[in-house]
């Protein structure tokens, strides 16, 4: 295998990639490529196989079968070489609680063969970047969830990686903390860092990803930019109708049977609401009222990746 690859070659290349734990298949023959400079995402619910995929890319989990190369190298044979150029933000914060904030970065730089001086220089710069300078000498434990996440991101950048793997970067954070993180990731992307992330938040995928794959039950079920996916699998607008629950019914909309037929090209009845996929939401509202339907609430919104996921799998992303 050559030591260098042409600039256009994908940073990550996977074909028929599988991961099994005993008899259980967590990743079932997925194909994808991540090009230099792009922000690529895996969108899928819990248990879809996102973390298993990321760990194989990070060379900390052996590939069961199929092809995987990172920077054109085989993870099984060139793990250390790949990791030298990789930044990893794992799903669970794996900070060193016995060390201070600054020390966490310093020693991590040492693990990447940086000198103490160089490690310190980068650590101070990175603390600035993630707005933790004033906590430099604090212990890690008392930091908030958002701060810990930012510290993990700073740590993942200590080796100036050209590819950053982020496994659910903002899960469990409040909206403000999430927006701060998104902003930092966006800046990294502008600096040319390739991002490869997983998420089960459709808004995160839409915010951050140039291109994504939708993953469900160990398989990739669709691929494209957020906009392409929406155009391909759902209509431009969605009309959400909620109906008052009739006596003795499990579902709010169970008594509607048939009344919505033909209202739009696709109708999805969920336990708590009805989704009407249509190019023109307002027109669909008018038709519904003409038919004598009296929903308790009416909402017309643009379609999202959540709708794409529902369309592809019949389930919602977050159960």
């Amino acid at each position: 295998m050559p030591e260098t690859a042409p600039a256009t070659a994908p940073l990550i290349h996977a074909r028929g990639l599988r991961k099994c734990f005993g008899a259980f298949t967590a990743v079932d023959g997925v194909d994808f490529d991540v090009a230099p400079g792009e922000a690529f995402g895996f969108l899928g619910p819990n248990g879809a196989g996102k973390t298993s995929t990321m760990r194989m890319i990070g060379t900390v989990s052996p590939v069961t079968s199929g092809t995987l190369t990172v920077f054109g190298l085989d993870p099984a044979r060139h793990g250390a070489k790949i990791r030298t150029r990789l930044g990893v933000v794992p799903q669970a914060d794996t900070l060193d609680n016995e060390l201070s904030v600054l020390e966490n970065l310093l020693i991590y730089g040492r693990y990447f063969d940086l000198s103490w001086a160089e490690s310190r220089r980068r650590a101070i710069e990175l603390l600035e970047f993630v707005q933790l300078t004033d906590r430099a000498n604090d212990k890690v434990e008392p930091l908030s969830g958002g701060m810990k996440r930012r510290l993990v991101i700073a740590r993942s950048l200590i080796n100036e990686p050209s590819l950053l793997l982020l496994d659910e970067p903002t899960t469990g954070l409040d909206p403000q903390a999430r927006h701060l993180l998104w902003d930092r990731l966006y800046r990294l992307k502008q600096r040319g860092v390739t991002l490869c992330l997983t998420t089960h938040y459709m808004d995160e995928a839409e915010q951050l990803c140039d291109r994504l794959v939708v993953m469900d039950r160990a398989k990739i079920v669709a691929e494209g930019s957020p906009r392409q996916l929406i155009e391909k699998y759902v209509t431009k607008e969605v009309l959400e109708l909620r109906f008052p629950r009739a006596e003795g019914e499990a579902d709010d909309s169970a008594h509607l049977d048939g009344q919505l037929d033909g209202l739009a090209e696709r109708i999805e009845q969920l336990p708590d609401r009805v989704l009407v996929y249509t190019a023109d939401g307002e027109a669909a509202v008018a038709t519904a009222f003409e038919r004598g339907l009296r929903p308790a609430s009416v909402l017309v919104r643009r379609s999202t990746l959540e709708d794409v996921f529902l369309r592809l799998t019949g389930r919602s992303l977050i159960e």
Partner: protein
Amino acid sequence: MLALRTYRPLPLTRPARIVQRNMLVYRHSFMVIFSGFFEPLFYLFSMGFGVGALIGNVPLGNGSSVSYAVFIAPALLASSSMNGAIYETSNNFFYKLKHAKIYDAIIATPMSLTDVARGEVMWALMRGSLYAVGFIVVVAVLGLAGLGLLTSPLGLLAFPAAMVVGYAFAGAGMAATTFVRQWRDFDYMQLAIMPMFLFSGTFYPIDAYPPALQAFVQCTPLYRGVHLIRALTTGTPDATLLIDLAYLIALGSIGLAITSRRLGKLLQS
């Protein structure tokens, strides 16, 4: 564009970073390190001087005899190396592996599993050798070493020999710890350590045992360590020291190899 620089560190360069990490941790609570320093000294004073006054001299195998304190001092040195190594590689290593999970982050860097295992053994050895040096200095100051520790040039080898004992127990202890599931399991480890400390020719010659038991005791690692260091400090070396050395180095190395493999299983599923 993707020119991947090939950096080849020396075999102990990356393991040393685990040592540096541990030094950062202990920088804040340095006195804790000295906790293990006093135990062998307490034994030396109570048993060596106290009980020793009642006992008189102890015969060595070669016809000569030494005072009781001189007899047990090398055994206490070996035990203190064992304890230092076991302490670091049992509780402390388990905490880092299963609770703090620091290795999960470390394996995402160019550090290998072997680097991690070697680094922790290096650290355990450094901690153990601190105790060994302290013990040897106190013994020398007390003038107890009349029969070899200072007068015979061989006595100087007691220190590296103590390191070899530490290496054996660090490797074995760490390998054992990778099989531990909960804190309670360490009680079983103590169940092996405690009798070894008491019965391995530490406090009396093993001639006291029936032949079958003697043969069994001679197969324990602490007996080999005591035998090795005592021969050096009393100036009575013979060819069996090579058996001690080979045994102890093999035990440490096999322990290290098992640890690397087990870490792979535990961390890289």
